[in-house]
């Protein structure tokens, strides 16, 4: 099937995109309604990959996208999210409850006032908040303005309307209340001239993990959540507070396959046996390492990766090439690979389609 073939209204889809340094997940909720989780932009292109993909399917993104989620504000998860929100005018925006804090809003406001040195993640949030503020000034409905706050066991989308072929529900499994409070304390300690590094520190902890129920199948999106030694935090906290009685057949592997994003409890308590799992690499941190893929492969035979770091360094002029000989370099940004899982309501196994360098891990 071609990449532009549109799913049936009663066909469920989870598409995972990853260029090697970013990720985006596009989900068909049924009845031509879509959700986008995080955002990335292909090199040499100014449009977010989700917009490009949905437009290629012939979807009316103005009306069709109902929810846009920012799992956290790391650069590799958020590029193009403001543009996405700007164009998908029917979509609600959802982010971690931790971002409601005064300290985070001040950091974003400082970036908007003095746009020089913040990470692109903070820049993107400055654009998102400014867009929501514009909508407020234009007296748009509150549902198009106020972010849906994601925290442990908070439902951020629910669709059971008559006429739907199946119900769709999205629940946040993190951040936990304890982590939320700890993050607020950490944010208060941020000096105004701090480097980006320490501001980045709490981001993965406050990642929004999503539990998505689509008819009789569940999907777990692991964001960049890590395992933590303290009780109630990280993945162990998610598993402890999980209130569902079902398990997920599909899993977007947490934190690019890193060992610190993995623990047995994810696989034994939250996932079905041999789930379909997708890894998005983060090449500048060498994630996933070969050992990580071996470990994940031992968890499930249905493991896929969006891109492999196989790009060739570009050729430049002889003068530049001579100077570059003494610099170690490697490609980190590739053409975004695309893993697409589609399934009909009562089918057990999905149709798996791989585009642009995505592959099954053998």
């Amino acid at each position, binding site marked *: 099937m071609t990449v532009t073939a549109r799913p049936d209204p009663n066909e469920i889809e989870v598409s995972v995109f990853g260029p090697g340094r970013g990720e985006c997940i596009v989900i068909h909720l049924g009845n031509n309604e879509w959700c986008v989780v995080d955002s990335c932009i292909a090199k040499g292109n100014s449009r977010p990959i989700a917009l490009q993909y949905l437009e290629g399917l012939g979807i009316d993104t103005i009306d069709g996208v109902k929810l846009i989620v920012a799992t956290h504000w790391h650069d590799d998860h958020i590029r193009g999210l403001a543009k996405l929100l700007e164009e998908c005018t029917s979509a609600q925006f959802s982010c971690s409850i931790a971002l409601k804090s005064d300290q985070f*809003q001040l950091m974003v406001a*400082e970036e908007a006032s003095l746009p020089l040195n913040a990470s692109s993640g903070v820049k993107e949030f400055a654009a998102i908040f400014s867009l929501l503020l514009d909508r407020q000034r234009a007296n748009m409905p509150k549902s198009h303005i106020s972010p849906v706050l994601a925290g442990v066991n908070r439902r951020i989308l629910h669709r059971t309307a008559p006429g739907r072929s199946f119900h769709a529900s999205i629940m946040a499994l993190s951040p936990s209340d304890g982590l939320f409070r700890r993050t607020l304390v950490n944010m208060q300690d941020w000096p105004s001239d701090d480097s980006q590094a320490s501001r980045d520190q709490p981001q993965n902890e406050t990642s929004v993990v999503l539990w998505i129920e689509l008819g009789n199948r569940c999907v777990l999106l692991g964001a960049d959540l890590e395992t933590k030694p303290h009780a109630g935090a990280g993945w162990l906290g998610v598993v402890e507070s999980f209130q569902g009685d079902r398990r997920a057949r599909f899993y977007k592997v947490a934190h690019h396959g890193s060992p610190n994003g993995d623990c047995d409890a994810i696989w034994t308590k939250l996932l079905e046996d041999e789930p379909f799992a997708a890894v998005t690499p983060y090449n500048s941190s060498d994630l996933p390492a070969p050992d990580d893929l071996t470990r994940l492969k031992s968890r499930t035979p249905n493991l896929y990766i969006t891109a492999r770091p196989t790009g060739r360094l570009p050729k430049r002029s002889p003068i530049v090439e001579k100077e570059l000989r003494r610099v170690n370099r490697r490609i980190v940004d590739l053409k975004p690979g695309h893993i697409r899982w589609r399934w009909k309501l009562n089918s057990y196994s999905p149709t798996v389609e791989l585009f642009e360098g995505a592959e099954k891990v053998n």
Partner: protein
Amino acid sequence: MDEGTAQGQPVRENRRGGDEFVAPVPSPTSTRSNALKSYQFWIGTVTRAFQDRFYAIVVDQTEPNNPDEEAEFELEEVPEGDRPLVKTGSTFYWVIGMERTPAGSQKRVSMIQFRHSPKMTESLTRKAEELASSFATIFD
């Protein structure tokens, strides 16, 4: 860009309040004299910094369709005054070009120049606080 900042012109303002605003460094082709001819220009962001070297993602500004690369640099390539700025998240310009020496000959140069973080002035701080209060209303 805010009050008192002109492209490429370091500006100092609000001296009475003791605050000082330092504008971003000028574009790399003009940081030295006109004797530097740029052949290749990247903007880099430090991803990991060690005592003697650092790693950065460099984004090609000369040919923007080129893929982003990670490059390893020796710290001694950075001007001494810029070395305290080398930490995760900081950004810099990297230029490779030909420079004409005072004697008239040409030599190949690789030049790294870090962006200096601006300091918030009192007025910018006030403006940011007001904006943050506005942002808070979208969460109500």
